[in-house]
């Protein structure tokens, strides 16, 4: 009986305590840079798209919300012909970001994506692509990888040795 009266009194005192609520639209909570929010496609330092349309993100996606189509350009680089994310299905799990070999797909701390029309939640490539490099500045896939494209033959990437000449016996 006494403990119940004490309970009532303690709860009553909370009337004068500070509110814990974050008044959301006016007062925004801090979201860290690694927060998993809206997905973006980033560019490499030269301003080209990083995405090489390898489809690993689409495979990794547990809810199958990513769809894309590969094309190959004249310079030998792969690019997505279209890249579409259906955010009404996306669960912001970040598996696509982990799967991406080129740091192209990244999750951002932006979570305010409410729409009145469900179709407006389907984002195309031009909606997804941003101008900057996101969380990994300075990284360019083609400059690291040993694949040959126009203007960069095999062996010209960073930390890559010249390809072995198989017809030469000299070491």
């Amino acid at each position: 009986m006494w403990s119940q009266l004490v309970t009532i009194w303690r709860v009553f005192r909370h009337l004068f305590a500070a509110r814990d609520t974050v008044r959301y639209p006016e007062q925004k909570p801090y979201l860290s840079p690694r927060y998993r929010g809206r997905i973006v496609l980033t560019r490499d330092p030269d301003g080209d798209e990083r995405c090489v349309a390898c489809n690993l993100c689409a495979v990794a996606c547990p809810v199958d919300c990513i769809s894309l189509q590969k094309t190959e350009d004249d310079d030998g680089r792969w690019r997505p012909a279209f890249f579409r994310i259906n955010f009404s299905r996306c669960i912001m799990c970040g598996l696509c970001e982990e799967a991406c070999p080129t740091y192209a797909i990244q999750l951002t701390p932006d979570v305010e994506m409410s729409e009145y029309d469900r179709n407006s939640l389907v984002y195309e490539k031009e909606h997804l692509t941003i101008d900057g490099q996101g969380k990994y500045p300075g990284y360019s896939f083609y400059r690291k990888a040993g694949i040959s494209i126009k203007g960069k033959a095999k062996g010209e990437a960073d930390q890559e040795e010249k390809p072995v000449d198989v017809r030469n016996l000299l070491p």
Partner: protein
Amino acid sequence: MWDMELLLKITLLVSTLLPTAALLVWLERRLLGFWQERCGPNRVGPFGILQSLADLIKILFKHDWIPPFADKPLFVLAPLIGALAVMMSFVVVPLSPGWMISDSHIGLLFFLAMTSLAVYGVLLAGWSSNNKYALLGGMRAAAQTICYEVFMGVSLLGVVILAGSFRLSDIVQAQQGLWFVIPQFVGFVIFIIAGIAESHRLPFDLPEAETELTGGFHTEYSGIKFALFFLGEYLGIMLISMMATTLFLGGWLGPWLPPLVWFLLKTLLLICFFILLRASLPRPRYDQLLAFGWKWLLPLALVNLLVTAAIKLTGGT
């Protein structure tokens, strides 16, 4: 033939009671929020005061569904009984000297009669839903109400002995010198506990008990019928607070301010206390509730009655 003033009073009372009940929902959510270090609804209108209106609009547009397995006439009738029986009791509540619809000489008995009828709403809702959770809720309501009704009546008899009348205005007048809460403190506590149990408020909300009975007696109800149950519950809190004010806290009596303001102030304070109880106390188990009622409160109420009667007979106040 018709008393125009009376009709006007009834219209005014009904048209203020219903919005006040809606406002009470807002007040309760707001206060609960404060006691849990939250804000409560504060968006719709100034301080969120229009939240109930928004809820009302939403609930009116919901599908008014009657389950095919339900007993249809009773299913429709039950929420009406629940809300109407409570609203009838407001007839005898004396708001201020000139502000009572009926100053009946059996006013207190009328109040007890109407609260005892209000349980039919819950009971029939539970039975007619044809749903095991609803039935369990209805049974709990029946057992709980019978148990707590008994000593609610007994606890009020002390007041009746002191005032010497069932007429509510006489009871208020008899508290001119001393509010009955002091000589009848035990009766006051028992009445408050029984009142919470009668209106199925949270420490004793076993008939609905969301966590165990998925909503209890109103499991199958939606839309406007559910709103009627809600209305009945909130009118019930108001009624119990008003009656406690009238019977124990001196009704409209008080210095400086006009009588009506005093009455409403006391009622509001009691309502806030009920909400505080909801915020702080957990729900007891069903058998604990009944054992507490029969084994503690009923003997206590009887002893209170006997002692009061003895003091009155031996020529005390």
